[in-house]
């Protein structure tokens, strides 16, 4: 009797709600996959069961790769995300290290200023930013977004890394310096290696955010050959009012897979980064 009760409790308290959350989270991706594998005849047949695929076909994928620059967009997105993440990690660490571990004049003010930059609307920045990019003659180059994405990422990364840098005891550094190491050596050989998990968290976060960025890419990348996946999909697969749903869903799914794949390797660090601020703060 008791066993039966816990079994029921487990079903109602765990398995059913968990299934509900999973279905809600995942059905849009399933719908993407189903749509992308159907032929147009089946896709737009009002009598067909929407969730079943009778005649699976790769025609939308073939069309997508043949008619658009999709693979170029994927390569652009990856390149931009990797470089923007690299720049942001470097600058973010340079900003966070002294703020977290040293006392100096202006430090507190700087830390507050960095946090406040979160509250600047990107929509206020984009006109001046476009002007700046234009004057630097970087319009329609990937450099334009590689340079502007870090403005969105550095404050966030610095804030995340500060949390990690603070956790390393001061004594470790002092001991190394007593032993004759310079500050630089103590930092690069002792403190930074201990904070590797923090760098992985910040990096995977910055990487997914770079993949997600839309506004700057929309403004600065108007030529097809330099576009990123989000801008390419919205700008070129939606042609006027006509929607090519099969191709669109193929593009949306293929565009999501690289991020999802890389995320799945680092999911532990992603969750750590996500919760670091929430739990520690």
């Amino acid at each position, binding site marked *: 009797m008791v066993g039966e009760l816990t079994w029921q409790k487990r079903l109602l308290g765990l398995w059913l709600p968990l299934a509900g959350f999973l279905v809600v989270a995942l059905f849009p991706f399933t719908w993407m996959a189903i749509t992308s594998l159907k032929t147009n005849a089946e896709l737009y047949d009002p009598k067909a069961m929407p969730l079943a695929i009778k005649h699976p076909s790769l025609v939308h994928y073939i069309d997508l790769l043949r008619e658009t620059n999709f693979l170029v967009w994927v390569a652009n997105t990856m390149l931009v995300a990797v470089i923007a993440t690299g720049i942001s990690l470097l600058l973010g660490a340079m900003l966070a290290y002294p*703020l977290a571990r040293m006392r100096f004049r202006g430090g507190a003010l700087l830390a507050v200023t960095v946090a406040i930059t979160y509250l600047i609307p990107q929509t206020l920045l984009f006109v001046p930013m476009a002007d700046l990019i234009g004057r630097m003659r970087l319009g329609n180059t990937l450099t334009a977004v590689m340079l502007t994405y870090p403005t969105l990422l*550095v404050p966030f990364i610095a804030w995340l890394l500060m949390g990690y840098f603070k956790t390393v005891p001061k004594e470790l550094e002092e001991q190394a310096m007593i032993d004759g190491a*310079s500050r630089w050596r103590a930092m690069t050989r002792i403190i930074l290696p201990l904070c590797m998990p923090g760098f992985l968290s910040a990096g995977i976060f910055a990487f997914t955010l770079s993949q997600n960025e839309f506004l700057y890419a929309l403004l600065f990348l108007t030529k097809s050959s330099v576009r990123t996946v989000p801008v390419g*999909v919205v700008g070129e697969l939606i042609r006027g009012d006509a*929607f090519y*749903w099969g191709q*669109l869903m193929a593009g949306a799914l293929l565009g999501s897979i690289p991020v999802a794949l890389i995320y799945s390797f680092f999911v532990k660090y992603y969750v750590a980064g*996500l919760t670091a601020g929430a739990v520690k703060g």
Partner: protein
Amino acid sequence: MSKILEAPGAGALAAPAHRHVRFGRLGAFVERQSVYSWLMITPPVLFLLTFLGYPFIYGVYLSFFQKEVARNASFVGFGNFVKLYNDPIFWQAVRNTIIFTGAATIFKACGGLAMALVMNQSFKLKSFARAMLLLPFIVPTVLSTVAWQWILDPGMGLFNRLLVVSGLATTGPSWLGTPTMAMISVIMVNTWRGLPFFGISILAGLQTIPADLHESATIDGAGTWGRFWYVTLPSLMPVILIVTVFSIVITFFDFQLVYVLTGGGPANSTHLMATYAYSLSMGAGQMGLGSAVALSMVPVLGLLLVALTLFVRKD
């Protein structure tokens, strides 16, 4: 790590002189905390001043000018803000932004709390389930929003097809076609995307609550609900609060979702301040006015955060 701790150390008192000799004058200068700090900090600060500080100041400056594409800017003082004050679409966008942010945040917080409570049990494949549940949050917004646009398509979209096939309705609602439904849809999609952020963060908070708190509450006679109200929820409040502030800021600035899903329509009914600022600057070419809308976002966001603080204080 242990190697470092075991390393033989010279006496602390002898250290400074020793270091002075070792690094030379320039070295000793660089070794000073303030000098070393500023050397480290200068490159990122210069970068942020160029690409964040300058555009910010220029954006604020623009909002006091009438600036149209390929024309010189002319100073209008508070003219743009006066114009906005008399612009019904602006007020509609302000209202929409507040409703969108408020409603979506409440749904995400409640749904996230439920998700966290469900996930805070031990079961097989838990970390796999967690990774799956976070997917909506990591997939690029534009791509998932395009999928939602197709799900909500009035004729052939998944929702209406399922409604018709199951016989629940002869024709489904026009999800993006009427002002009210469009607003509901936009809030729904934002909730779908942001809920895992709440869920996983609150889950992490749940795992830090010491088990003996629950035990002593049980000994004191608290039931499941009592433990939830008097132990779990109060211990979670700091986490929920921080995640909520984060989420309010992100949701408030959201641009891509509405831009892709409705473009602000039908009849401006889903325009947010961000999309309205964009359409004024880029669509109508009125960059001064667009900047004024964007700048107005800051006090509105401040107001929302103050409202949240008051709400929490009252509790």
